[in-house]
């Protein structure tokens, strides 16, 4: 039963404007939406963004390529390695450098760990919005393990900047690998536990099933991507369709559901966590030996110990640190599958060590108009559920 068909348009002037956000706990950041209400039903939803505008694209035009990477962490702050990887892949495509297999595998492990962490934040906060407190605490418990792993490998818990142009920042360590092995053994039972709490819970199903529906055609037309698109029946995952960093070597499934509602988005993401764990397990089993960064010293720093014996290494080190990487003239776009959907960087290079233009294709930014489309005709109580189900991160919306 559609709510809009209940003769609501008859009472034309009897509406109330309700402001939601930017300081609303359920808008997941500083997202503001102006709702025109007809009783309990949303007539129109007008999004308002820009409260977290930091000018990262402008700043990037004045920084060297290597210096942009820490800023990409702060775009989608729940999935920093995904942003690092998108930027590095675009730069590497312009330079034309080959990445060693070990570096690629380490990148994949890092990205998938952070996808799990990001989905855990989403599940916890989304469930909390709808009223399930316990899931939030459980999700944070498992996310903490991933943040500890991040700290072990990069020294930072969230803004890792681990993926660099030409490879990764440093090689894997024994405690990190052991920690991941522990985690992949421990995690599947925990996902089952979340599902036990929610999937067949009548309150959860009532609040999510059939709400915020977007059909396949609409979802494509509104440029939704990632889990939100796959929940509407579109079988499109960039890891499968345009593989990067060796994703074609791993065996994993793409969960696709047809409902297009909040419930299906929830089930897609939960299944994605299991698939990410599968990818990490395979990457750990056949972690190749070799370099963790490209041996090309014009792109990545030479090994520290060679600086004492090799003049060329010293010069390369000096030039890379003082000048940075010079990228050939050109423009390119590389998309990857981030935790929220298609993350891509459009980079224009003028041949110097500073990018001429950096543009982020942010999945959350592109999803906002479609999300507000879903809100029209739903109840006010479901607005928080819809915002949560799209999983927006304002850092990448406002940039």
């Amino acid at each position, binding site marked *: 039963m559609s709510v809009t068909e209940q003769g609501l348009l008859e009472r034309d002037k009897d509406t109330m404007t309700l402001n939601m956000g930017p300081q609303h706990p359920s808008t997941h950041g500083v997202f503001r939406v102006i709702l025109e209400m007809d009783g309990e039903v949303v007539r129109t939803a007008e999004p308002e963004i820009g409260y977290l505008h930091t000018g990262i*694209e402008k700043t990037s035009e*004045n920084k060297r390529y290597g210096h942009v990477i820490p800023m990409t962490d702060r775009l989608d702050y729940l999935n920093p390695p995904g942003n690092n990887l998108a930027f590095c892949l675009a730069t590497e495509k312009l330079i034309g450098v080959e990445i060693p297999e070990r570096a690629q595998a380490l990148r994949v492990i890092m990205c998938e760990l952070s996808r799990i962490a990001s989905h855990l934040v989403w599940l916890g906060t989304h469930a909390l919005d709808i009223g399930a407190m316990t899931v939030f605490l459980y999700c944070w418990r498992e996310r903490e393990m991933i943040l500890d792993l991040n700290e072990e490998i990069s020294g930072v818990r969230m803004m890792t900047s681990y993926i660099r142009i030409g490879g990764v920042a440093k090689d894997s360590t024994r405690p990190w690998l052991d920690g991941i092995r522990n985690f992949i053994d421990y995690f599947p039972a925990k996902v089952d536990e979340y599902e036990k709490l929610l999937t067949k819970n009548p309150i959860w199903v009532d609040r999510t099933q059939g709400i915020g529906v977007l059909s396949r055609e609409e979802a494509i037309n509104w440029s939704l991507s990632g889990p939100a698109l796959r929940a509407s029946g579109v079988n499109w995952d960039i890891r499968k369709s345009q593989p990067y960093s060796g994703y074609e070597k791993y065996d994993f499934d793409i969960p696709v559901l047809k409902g297009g509602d909040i419930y299906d988005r929830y089930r897609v993401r939960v299944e994605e966590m299991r698939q990410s764990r599968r990818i990490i397990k395979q990457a750990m089993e056949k972690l190749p030996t070799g370099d963790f960064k490209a041996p090309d010293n014009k792109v990545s720093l030479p090994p520290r110990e060679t600086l004492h014996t090799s003049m060329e290494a010293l010069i390369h080190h000096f030039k890379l640190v003082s000048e940075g990487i010079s990228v050939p003239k*050109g423009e390119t776009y590389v*998309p990857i599958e981030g935790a929220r959907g298609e993350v891509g960087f459009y980079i224009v290079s003028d041949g110097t060590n500073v990018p001429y233009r950096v543009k982020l294709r942010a999945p959350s*930014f*592109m999803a906002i*108009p479609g999300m507000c489309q879903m809100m029209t005709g739903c109840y006010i109580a479901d607005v928080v559920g819809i915002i949560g189900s799209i999983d927006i991160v304002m850092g990448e919306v406002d*940039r």
Partner: protein
Amino acid sequence: MTAEEIIEKLKASLPDAIQDTALPQGDAVIFVAPENLQEVAGFLKNDASLKFDYLSDVCGVDYLIEEREPRFETVYLLYSIDHQHSIRIRVGIDEENPSVPTVSELWKGALYPEQELFDMFGIHVEGHPKMERLIMPKEWVGHPLRKDYPLTTETVAFSHNRDYKSELVKSKPPTR
């Protein structure tokens, strides 16, 4: 279809509308004039063997420092979910009264990035239902991502490295 096949097909089907083509790093790129954009975009979306049904993004670029004509460029990133191929449309836009027709009738996802084009570059998108600022405040003056818009104009009371910073700012000072 491969990038070469897409370009061959477009050259054969729309010989007048396509200004130029390129294959940088194997990506299909076409250059289109603003007046032909809607025709080309409509063909790309509706042709059965191309079927670019997904708009990834619309980017703006200001080529002021490169001193090339025309000054602005908008880039449309398209993808076909069924055929799994992609294309970039580059549209050059003149400095005087920069404007470009909207593609939001074909892809509704273009509404937001086109509004951002206006906000950040001052490129007027014809036919867009809401041509106003998106990210910057409504009363903001200037378009931040233009190259003649300085990186910072904020005065800092105590700065030991101001000279160093002004070196870093490559942009020309604002004309206003």
